[in-house]
């Protein structure tokens, strides 16, 4: 009984961790590009990235399901490349979550990169730091807080995701059955005691996780000049 929930927890964590990783790897250059881009196509790309927000997850899931099925190109390509069906696989829910959570990662990062400005990057370049070096030695540490926001929004949103995953994953235990679906199932199956238990564990677990993340991000600022002056200008 509890075993099956544990299994869902493991799947959820695997999926959310992998999704967050991919989101950061894909989202960071995308956000950087958008932040520095001046072309008029920028607004279009921005709108496309934000689109998953507007569609109800189940509907988004419906379209993804169609795309992932072996009858359509993305699903076909995947099958040719990996020999496995894409729909109803672990890979499918990761891809779905990545698409669905992309705006939550891209937008905070983009704004952070925009606010950063160029002056410190110019200084870095003139000390011999190339673009990659500058990114890791200047941009990343200065926008650390936004990366944490982006990652935690992405992670949390993936954990809470339900409609898309249910549709393209098919709720298969050990593969695509995640905690949010398990929780939903408990409610549907009138198993309120277990639903409450799971919901509360989920809440406490995520709260501890989120608090830990935010706390990790806290001490860095504590002895800065700005902080000591907060009271004066509140």
């Amino acid at each position, binding site marked *: 009984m509890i075993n099956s929930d544990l299994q869902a927890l493991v799947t959820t964590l695997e999926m959310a961790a992998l999704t967050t990783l991919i989101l950061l790897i894909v989202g960071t250059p995308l956000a950087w590009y958008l932040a520095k881009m001046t072309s008029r196509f920028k607004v279009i790309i921005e709108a496309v990235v934000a689109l998953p927000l507007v569609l109800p997850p189940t509907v988004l899931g419906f379209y993804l399901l169609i795309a992932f099925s072996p009858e359509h190109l993305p699903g076909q390509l995947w099958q040719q490349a990996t020999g496995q*069906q894409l729909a109803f696989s672990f890979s499918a829910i990761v891809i779905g979550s990545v698409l669905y959570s992309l705006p939550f990662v891209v937008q905070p990062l983009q704004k952070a990169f925009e606010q950063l400005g160029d002056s410190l990057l110019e200084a870095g370049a003139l000390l011999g730091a190339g673009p990659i070096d500058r990114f890791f030695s200047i941009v990343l540490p200065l926008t650390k807080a936004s990366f944490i926001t982006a990652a935690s929004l992405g992670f949390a949103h993936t954990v809470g995701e339900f409609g898309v995953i249910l549709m393209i994953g098919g709720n298969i235990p050990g593969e695509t059955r995640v905690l949010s679906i398990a929780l939903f199932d408990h409610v549907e199956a009138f198993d309120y005691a277990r639903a409450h238990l799971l919901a509360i564990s989920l809440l406490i677990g995520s709260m501890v996780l989120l608090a830990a993340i935010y706390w990790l991000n806290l001490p860095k600022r504590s002895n800065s000049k700005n902080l000591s002056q907060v009271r004066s200008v509140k």
Partner: protein
Amino acid sequence: GQAYQSNVNDSTNTKTKSDDNNKPLRIAVAANFTPVLKVLLKDFTRQTGIKTQVISGASGAMFLQIKYGAPFDMFLSADSRRPKELEQAGYALKGSRKTYAIGQLALYSSSNNSNANSLGQLSLEEELAVDQLRKPPARFAIANPDTAPYGKAAKEALTHLGLWQLYESRLIKGINIGQTFAQLRSKAVTRGIVANSQLVLNNLSGVIIPSNYHQAIEQQLIIIRSSKQQTAAEKLSHFLLSAQSQNRIVSYGYAQTQLVNNANKKLSELTAK
């Protein structure tokens, strides 16, 4: 519902191994029947040694998933329309479509002394139902008549009583009968029409709405044509339709099915001709 497997390790095997015999029989089932199925499957596994995995969900979603290649072996829908469509579209094993249960509507009220209204004689029931329904509350919960079979039946019952007009503007429509029940359980809405089986399973009581007020809520199953475990699936189909299982199903708040299945057979014979 959750996965029912005699051995949890098997689930990991399903990822890696493609050995069909080792794979459990994967059953997609409408959420409202999941608890009953789980009880029945215990016996089934004991008798046949066939391992099973239950995937519970909304019939609509599962219907779409099967169309797009979901790796299910069997589908227990909450209605008859979707199995029929799947059969016509060639996703079902020919002749595998069977009615495994017939839903029964019940009027549920979370606020009043509904405990007094224990299930009794039909005539009394009828009286009670009509009686209560004639005094419509501000809000009344049913499943969505356009998409959910229990909702459609509820609408028919209300129409039959000439009360649909009265109720139409007061309806809280759940996406399926599960959500309607959840809405009632939250007590945000106090009265509504749910599946009788939901009440039975939760030790609640309501007033059964006579089945002749609406078309039968046939819950049908099919065996998926692409399944590699069709024999095991057929065994389960037989098991579910056996008199013993049917009696247990009825004891969980469903109506008798015998009649319907026969009629169904005749119908399909007729249409086949």
